[in-house]
């Protein structure tokens, strides 16, 4: 699914706004066009199909109920939706944090050393720009940021995974955020 064209974006914005007005058809169409992206995100973060399905369901239930709070001047519909699904996934991870930490087999799956765009996926200009800025980071710091973003891990979990002291992880991430911020705002 491509959401990189402005026209596509506008259409999604409109569908989300219509959903906010209880338009069930628009909601069904919105689901059809965005659920595979959101499900990809949920799966990536939770690494468990059942959990990801539940979180996806929660996400769209919330979309239906809260779509009227969507403000197109703040974010595009797709950003709003992805953010919502990530937030739900992170909340879920926080609930199950102990289980996940106790299951090393799951942790092994987490590290993705191939952070390349999915085959055939169209990447947006925003992504290319972000990628350039990420490339300016020290390799270790860049992979910490990615790990954090894609797995929703806390500072503590990241420090454990990367086998560095908590303070080091914090300063890596904060330094990276600072650098990204200055790079992206140019």
């Amino acid at each position, binding site marked *: 699914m491509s959401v990189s064209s402005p026209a596509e974006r506008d259409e999604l914005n409109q569908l989300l706004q219509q959903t906010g007005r209880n338009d069930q058809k628009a909601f069904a169409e919105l689901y059809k066009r965005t*659920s595979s992206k959101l499900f990809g995100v949920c799966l990536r973060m939770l690494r468990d199909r059942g959990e990801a399905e539940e979180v996806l369901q929660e996400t769209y239930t919330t979309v*239906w109920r809260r779509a009227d709070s969507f403000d197109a001047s703040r974010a595009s519909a797709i950003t709003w939706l992805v953010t919502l699904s990530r937030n739900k996934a992170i909340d879920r991870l926080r609930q199950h944090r102990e289980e996940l930490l106790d299951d090393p087999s799951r942790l092994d799956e987490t590290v993705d050393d191939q952070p390349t765009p999915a085959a055939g996926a169209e990447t947006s200009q925003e992504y290319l720009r972000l990628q350039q800025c990420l490339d300016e980071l020290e390799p270790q710091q860049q992979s910490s940021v990615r790990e954090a973003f*894609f797995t929703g*891990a*806390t*500072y503590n979990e990241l420090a454990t995974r990367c086998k560095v002291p908590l303070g080091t992880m914090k300063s890596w991430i904060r330094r990276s955020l600072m650098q990204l911020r200055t790079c*992206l705002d140019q």
Partner: protein
Amino acid sequence: MNTPIEDGNNHLRYAEYVLGVLDADTRAEVAHEVLVSGEAATAVALWQRRLMPLTDTIGDVTPAPYVWARIHDALQLDAPARVAPRKGLWDNLQLWHWLGIGASAVAVALLVVVSLPRPTTTPTVVNAGYMAATIQQDNGSTGWTATMDLQHARMVVVPATPVAFEQGRAPELWLIPAGGKPISVGMIARDKPTTLALDPALLARLGPTAALAVSVEPVGGSPTGQPTGAVIAKGAIDAAPDAGGKVAMAGDGQADRPRDQSSPA
């Protein structure tokens, strides 16, 4: 030196929130800030715009079809097959809102619904096809009125006076069969009419011995399947007055003052 006036955009904590590294408590704090402070909301939105493009690298995965079915059920959306094509009185939410002044008024209106000639080929509506309930709050004022259309297996719940709920809480409607456990009918809106589909199990239990109740639940509904919060309103279900009885409404559709005690909304 003058400290520049800041817009909250300098707080790295908002970035950490969006990145997802904060623990549950701190996350909740920031989430709360976002709700109450425009500054925080803007800073978080900016960081979302900065970081969300990372999800471009995640491949799409099509979810199984049953996920949509579950969402559909959970939200009690009209199934495509069940969407009533006829735009009649039933679908006129304005009217339902106006009717929110009391169950009697709804009942009166229903008399009109069933007795007015309809531009449709549907067989004559059975009089007993409707039931109504006034769901009263503890202080005696009407919280919602519910009207059940048995033929079409649906219920419209209209708030009389919007009830205040704290953040994160919402009203959930329950059917309580005589001597039975509450059955969730669905989440209802506090400030506008809600149309709910009634499944056969629920339909079978509707009747003069059953009651409706509204409890305070998390926005997504009771996590246990049973009411977990305070019951704030309840009311018995009555069959709508028989259409053969007196029609307390003038032919031009102007309702007489309903003869009930409840105060107008």
